[in-house]
Every structure is written in structure tokens, then in C-alpha cells.
């Protein structure tokens, strides 16, 4: 498991680790779904709904990671679907992310995470890359 839960008095603080930036985004998706929906689906029907695209003006990797996880949250809450990223193209300088992948119905309705926050955000450059983030539940 590329992530672990750290101590936090009210919500859920995660440390996510990966050997590359792209892997860090994949691991963040796995961590998010595991915490929010209770599991990361293993069966993904070949359902296309288009890629996930994010643009930020900040040009910071940690901001992109929060935006990425909040994007996953939005689709889980409003359409009850999860995303399996197959290719992730990140340009930190431009602050852009394009993720291609497959969508699958979630096994449980909605998710327990209400927001991925900027509070206590930490990113240790890698490899290994380590990202610490707090999820509001």
C-alpha cells in the first residue's frame, strides 16, 4: 500500500509515497478512494467518459495533487463513479494535468470525504516523493 494514515484529532491525514510524480498521482487516487469509498475498485468496465484535465495558475505540484483528489471527489459524489488512471501527463511549470483512464461505477454510494484540504500540506521531493494531505470527513 503506497499510503498510510497519520495521526489527526478530527479528520484524516495521509502520507502518500511514490517513486515518480506520475505514480504519486496514481497512489493519491488509490488512497482517496480507499479512505472515501472504503475500497479501490479492481474491476473497471471499459467505459469511456473522457480524460480528467486540470489547470491551475499556481504551478505547484502540491496544489495540483489537491485539485486532482478534489476532482475525484466531485465525480464520486455527483455521479457515483470512480476513475482508474492509465496515463498521467503532468506539467508542473504550466500547472496542468491530463489523466486518461477508465471509469467505473462506485461500489458504495458517494464518499465519506467531504473535501481534500490545503491544511498542513507537505510535499517532499523525490524519489521517493512523499505527499502529506488532510481529508475533511
Amino acid at each position: 500500500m503506497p499510503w498510510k494514515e497519520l495521526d489527526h484529532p478530527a479528520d484524516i491525514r495521509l502520507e502518500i509515497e511514490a517513486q515518480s510524480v506520475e505514480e504519486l498521482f496514481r497512489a493519491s487516487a488509490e488512497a482517496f478512494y480507499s479512505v472515501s469509498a472504503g475500497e479501490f475498485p479492481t474491476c473497471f468496465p471499459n467505459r469511456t467518459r473522457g480524460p480528467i484535465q486540470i489547470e491551475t495558475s499556481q504551478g505547484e505540484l502540491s496544489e495540483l495533487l489537491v485539485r486532482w483528489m478534489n476532482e475525484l471527489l466531485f465525480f464520486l459524489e455527483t455521479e457515483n463513479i470512480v476513475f482508474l488512471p492509465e496515463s498521467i501527463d503532468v506539467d508542473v511549470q504550466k500547472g496542468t494535468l491530463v489523466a486518461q483512464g477508465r471509469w467505473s461505477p462506485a461500489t458504495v454510494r458517494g464518499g465519506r470525504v467531504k473535501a481534500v484540504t490545503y491544511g498542513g500540506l507537505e510535499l517532499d521531493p523525490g524519489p521517493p516523493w512523499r505527499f502529506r494531505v488532510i481529508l475533511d470527513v
Partner: protein
Amino acid sequence: MSIQVERKDPVRCLIPQTAMEGMRVPGLLYADGRILSEVRDDPVLQQVTNVACLPGIAGFSFAMPDMHWGYGFPIGGVAAFSSEGGVISPGGVGYDISCGVRLHVSRLAEERVQPELNGLLDALFATIPCGVGSEGLTSLKGSRLDAVLKGGAAWAVRNGFGEKSDLERIEHGGCLEGADPDEVSGRAKERGQSQLGSLGSGNHFLEIQRVDEIFDRSLATSFGLEVGRVTVMIHCGSRGLGHQVCDDFLKTLSRSVSRYGIRIPDRQLACAPLDSAEGKAYLGAMQAAANFAMANRQAIGSRVREVFSRFFPGESLDLLYDVSHNLALMEKHSYEGKPGWFCVHRKGATRALPPGDPKLPRIYSKTGQPVIIPGSMGTASYVLAGAAGAAECFFSTCHGAGRLKSRSAALKVLDSKGVSAALEAKGILVRAGDLRTLGEEAPEAYKDVDIVVDVVERAGLSRKVARLTPLAVIKG
């Protein structure tokens, strides 16, 4: 880093302005010895000092006795920013905008309710959507959702949820007039459109309670509270809509800080000048989300009444009061001997107006504002009344017990089944929308609400009126 704390009196501690570079005011903690020992090494004290660095802050960066680590601002934090040079920050309101609590009061004795309690709880659990991913009592789209964002609880009443007389028993008459639905993003509206009339998950709940103890007979009588009578408490907020508004404006305002040359020690303290376009936009969107939250609680309260009336025909379930504990509002206060306007941020803190305050509805002008303090499952909740001493903190008080232990630590003490069994052993019935939440929200994960309330009373911020104990709980 250890933060310097000086005790001022048995229930107040000061963080001197010199504790950290950049502080514009000192920090003021409402804490007795036990509460201070619980937070002494917690990041919450750093957060109090961080807030003290924001432009235009007046008086102190306050922390109520239920303080704990939040996002940017501490939970239990109160900060007032002058209309001249001050800022507004989504971090000072929190993700669940206008999360709050209301109390309905019956004239029913516990003995009359007990034989029906199991069936009543089942009926409420079947009627009130709760838990992860729960959808609400009504679906809203387009202009209908905008009408909720503009009208708040008044919209709910116009659409069959409750009675017109409820509105004077909700803060601001159930509607913040500065709400601007156009500033609420399409994403926020999409998240909220199917959630009106739902508890949600986390620490939200619906509880059937009995009045266990009266501290002030005169005030309790005015509030319709007698020992042994049954009450219903509802704790919830603006659901995904409010969370999305917060997230949207954290992004917007994180760009504002550099534009306006504001230095912030934590990016979750992103803010904008009160008179800036971004600041005004957030204020309008945040008030719209607050209206959604007040409509949400009104819709749930109305359905609770309907279920009650099936079990107890002819019996009323009057609303005592509905208060928000995550909000920032422009308020007029006397500060340093002069009247002025301030944007008072209360994040995990409750407004508490004293007797005679002109903002009080007529029915509470002599008693002071009812303040509803929810406990945790299995422990007491309180009804307080606003008191004159709260002038020192812009008429604010605590909001609940405040968390003490992490979710994982709580689960190590008792799992969800264990919590359920422990509560039922105390005679408290439980239903949960999300079983995992039950363990994480165990009473042991929270501070002792009796001590929290004792501190705010000893500090003169509010007066104890009544203590309520749970009979049955629906946990979101």
C-alpha cells in the same frame, strides 16, 4: 515549536503578541487547567497565533474551550476583522458553511415516549436521509436551487417545510440577505442539488433527548424546558454545496493574497480585503451556502415533526432556536469605546447575544439568545443563554465538546459494534447511516462537554440553562 502561554485567570490564558513574529494581536484562550493540558502540544495553539497575523484583526485571536486543530483557523476560533483594513477568509468559516444545530422542544414526558422510542427511531431513520452519499428530501435544479440560496429557511417554509413562526427562532430569521447565488459555482450547485433535507455523515446527528437538569429555572421556563421533557436536536450543515464553495474560494483567494500583498503563515488562511471584489464575492457565496444550510435544517426539522405527530397526535414539537457555528458575518460592535463594523469569523464557535441586544427576536429579548451546544453520542448536550460578558469576544461562545482523539485512536478503543453496544447498555438506542463513523465518533473521542460548558459560564460568555441527555441517536 512550543507556544508561550500565560495564565490570566482560572479560565483565560494569553498568548502574548511577542510569541511569534508577525502577530498583530495577542491570542486569548478560554481554558481551565485540564483543557490547556489537553491542547498544550497541539497545533491548535500555532493556529491561534497564525490567525493573529491577519490584517485588521481586532482585540485578540480567540479560542473557545472546545478548541482543536482545524484548517487554517482553529476549530473553536473567533476572530473579528475591522471593516477598515480587515480581511475575510474561507478558512475562518470552514468547509461546512453554517454547520449548525437546532433544538425542538416537546411537552412530552420521557415516560410517555419510552414505550414508542424504538419505533419512533426507526421511523425517523427511514424518513431522514443520512450517511455517506445520502440524497435529500427534495431535488432542486436551476432557479429552484437559486431560490433556496436566496431564501434560506424562509424558502423551506414557503415550500411546505415547517411553519412561518419557526423563522423568528432561527438566527437572522433563517435568511442572510446578502446571499448571492450567482457567486456559487456550477460545481457547488451540482453537489447540493440533491442534498437538501439530509443529515450527511461525519459528526452530524439527530438525537432524541430528555431534559436531565435545569440550572436556571426562570430561563428554562421561558425556553419551555422542564426536567423529564423530551427534546429533539438536529446537527448538520450545507453538505457538499458548502464544501465546494469553500474549496472554490480557497483557490480564488490564494491568488488574492499576493495581489493585495498579504503575508499569510498558512495557505489555508487565504483571504482578501473585505472591500475587495474577491472578498465581497466570497461573502455573497458563503451567505448563499448558509441559507442552504438553514433551509436544510428547517426541512429536516419539519419532517421530524411529521413523524412525531404520527406517534403522538396533537403534541407539538416547537423550535427553540437554530444556530450556526461556522460563519463569518458583518456585525456592529463597540470596540475600544467606539462603535464599528467587523467581520466576525466564528469557526466552531457560536454567536451568543445577551439580553436586550437589538438583534434578538422579540421572544428572546429578555432572556438572551438560546445557545445550543451539542455533546457527543452518549454524553450530555446543553442549552445556554447569551450573557453580557461575551462582549469581550464579540458575543461568541463555544459550539460543542470538541474532538480530543483521532479517528484511528477512537477505533482502537472501541469499534463501531462496541460503541453501539456500550450506548445500548446505557439505554441509548442507536441507528447509523455509516457504521464506521459510529466508532470514530465515540464519546471517548471528544473532550468532556461538561467542562467545556463550565469554562464558558465561568468566563461570563454564557449562562447554563439546561442539560440534556440522549435517549436515542441517529448518526449520519
